């Protein structure tokens, strides 16, 4: 028999959103909460890689306008409106938890990422009605009578497979773009943060819809992964950007909405590379060093650290490549973080539709904080309504256990996860990158299917305790589904909007495509559809 743990609310993911959701829900003394994270809080996930910039300064109208025009009107306006109106409250609650929030540049404040998580972890471990399960990977959601009733779990420290029964489940597993591309901001120093998008796929397989999965933000990154934290040099990304002939491609990124994270700018760099004029460099050797007294302390520390590694953009040209950064797509929710499955909630980067076609720097922390609290609050309301957790299907559980254990069995012609992942990353880089077209996407689909057929050849070494290869094999089997859903969504959107650019449909098509793409799992198959964006607060200006 499998071990079963029971709770009212299961929160999956130990980043900022999951941590805040657990604390918010724990205010209800009679609710028991389990927070499960595949790594320790503050030592896993994407939150620690964030620099803490949180867009929060200015009127709700200004922030709303900034996000929705930046997102090319693909944002869910109900969600955005709630978020920009709620951020001040949420920051106040963070302060009450003892998190230091300092003013930053522009419309941002700084919520220091790792420091915040460490502090939250301390509070969580002292909160009697939260059980913190670290080094625990959730592998599948279990359902009963149309609601989610819990999940299957793997204790990484022992390899034990067990079950968690829950009235309500909150998915807070983060982004999906890091593992899909060879270059990414998600992996400091080139070391994988395993941000593999399994939460999106688990929700999808449980019946939730995914929205706008084709919307993936790509940004310029230092070619040398050791330089990733160059962003702690203020103004580094302002450029100037030069091609290999020393010609300036762009000297004024501030002219773009979203600056160096703008899709228009990134597409410009991509075209320069396509012409064969790469590599691209940022050359600031003639610029003055920034005044460290203008920097907040945490940033200055990181800047010094980069310098101690011998990296100084005022001494050398820095080579730039393009890589993945953020997934604007994700689980379809409303402003209460509810999915279409009554007991299932989603918060943080795993939510879709918040940032539309382009995320502007600083709004992901706003999303994490506001909806972290909100998901905890809403999940608690649901759990308090007194629904009992449903049962489990033994069939589902046995099937999942078999599915996990298959990777430990010897194979005739075995493959390692890294081999398959590299193949997948190449496909994504070649065909599902900054500029896409139908023939490339169709080719990607065929190649992804071939890779999926090879998942059965994945073989991890046969032991149970902290088996990284095993965990990665389990995650890869979900990632390959995700890749297919992204390609299907990208094929469906026959226009160019934000970070989704189609060479065969180069124009933004407001007539036909002010719509979200939707994918859902129906009768054993992915089904692609669309739904109109509700434009009740802000409409695009029609060209005459």
């Amino acid at each position, binding site marked *: 028999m499998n071990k079963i743990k029971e709770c009212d609310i299961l929160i999956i993911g130990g980043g900022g959103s999951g941590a805040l959701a657990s604390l918010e829900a724990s205010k209800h003394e009679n609710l028991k909460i389990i927070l499960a994270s595949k790594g320790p809080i503050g*030592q896993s996930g994407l939150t620690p890689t964030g620099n803490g910039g949180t867009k929060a300064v200015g009127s709700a109208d200004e922030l709303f306008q900034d996000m929705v025009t930046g997102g090319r009107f693909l944002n869910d306006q109900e969600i955005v409106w709630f978020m920009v109106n709620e951020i001040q409250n949420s920051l106040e609650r963070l302060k009450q938890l003892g998190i230091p929030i300092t003013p930053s540049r522009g419309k941002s404040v700084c919520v220091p990422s790792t420091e915040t998580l460490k502090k939250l972890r*301390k509070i969580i471990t002292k909160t009697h009605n939260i059980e913190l399960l670290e080094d625990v990977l959730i592998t599948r959601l279990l359902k009963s009578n149309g609601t989610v009733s819990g999940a299957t779990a793997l204790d990484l420290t022992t390899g034990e497979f067990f079950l968690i029964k829950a009235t309500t489940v909150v998915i807070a597993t983060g982004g999906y773009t890091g593992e899909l591309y060879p270059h990414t901001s998600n992996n*400091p120093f080139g070391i994988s*943060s*395993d941000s593999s998008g399994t939460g999106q796929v688990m929700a999808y397989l449980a019946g939730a819809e995914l929205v706008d999965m084709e919307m993936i933000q790509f940004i310029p990154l230092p070619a040398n992964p050791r330089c990733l934290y160059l962003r702690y040099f203020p103004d580094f990304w302002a450029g100037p950007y030069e091609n290999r002939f020393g010609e300036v491609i762009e000297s004024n990124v501030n002219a773009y909405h979203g600056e160096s994270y703008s899709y228009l700018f990134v597409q410009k760099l991509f075209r320069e590379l396509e012409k064969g004029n790469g590599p691209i460099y940022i050359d600031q050797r003639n610029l003055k060093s920034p005044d460290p007294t203008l920097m907040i302390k945490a940033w200055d520390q990181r800047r010094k650290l980069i310098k101690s*590694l011998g990296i100084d953009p005022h001494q050398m040209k820095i080579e730039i490549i393009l890589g993945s950064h953020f997934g604007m797509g994700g689980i379809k929710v409303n402003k209460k973080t509810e999915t279409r499955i009554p007991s299932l909630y989603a918060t943080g980067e795993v939510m879709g539709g918040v940032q539309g076609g382009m995320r502007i720097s600083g709004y992901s922390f706003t999303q994490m904080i506001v909806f972290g609290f909100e998901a905890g609050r809403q999940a608690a309301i649901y759990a308090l309504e007194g629904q009992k957790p449903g049962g489990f299907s033994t069939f589902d559980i046995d099937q999942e256990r078999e599915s996990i254990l298959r990777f430990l069995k010897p194979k005739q012609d075995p493959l390692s996860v890294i081999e398959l992942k590299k193949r997948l990353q190449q496909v994504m880089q070649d065909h599902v990158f900054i500029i896409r077209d139908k023939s490339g996407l169709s080719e990607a689909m065929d190649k992804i299917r071939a890779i999926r057929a090879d998942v059965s050849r994945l073989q*991890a070494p046969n032991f149970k305790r902290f088996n990284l290869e095993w965990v990665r094999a389990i995650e890869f089997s979900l990632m390959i589904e995700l890749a297919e859903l992204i390609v299907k969504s990208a094929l469906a959107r026959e226009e160019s909007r934000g970070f989704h650019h189609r060479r065969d449909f180069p124009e933004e098509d407001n007539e036909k495509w002010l719509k979200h793409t939707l994918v859902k799992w129906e009768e054993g198959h992915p089904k692609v559809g669309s739904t109109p964006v509700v434009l009740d607060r802000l409409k695009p200006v029609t060209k005459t």
Partner: protein
Amino acid sequence: MNNQITAIVFRYDPERDEKPYYDEYHVKAEGEMSVLVLLNRIHNEIDTTLSFRIFCCGLQMCRSCLMKINDKKRFACLTLVKPGEKVTIEPASYPDGHIKDLVVKIVDGDSEKLKKDALSAKKCSEQRKATFSENSEKGRKER
């Protein structure tokens, strides 16, 4: 060899090994790299059975990669090794809270905990000398 780094890595799976032992890896290196990058290469290219906490904040802040490197507790993310060098890598704590190979349990207030462990660091180093002189295969049970 000047184009490789030699890593001597503490190995112990309490479920499968009678006692700890050390594996020696020769890793091709085109330049200096951090110990965490080195461990990643070993995992990706040489030995998928090696366990360590892969996560990297790259800032010496999250403490996930704290381990004993050449007998001193350091952050693997920013401790650099050069081609031609030899590096010994051991868990931050053993036997207290040890899980497998370089992975230890994360405890709240880890720094206090680790100060206490400094005493056992010496013991560990002595044990290594004793173990490593033997055939490292001896630590493994029949598989």
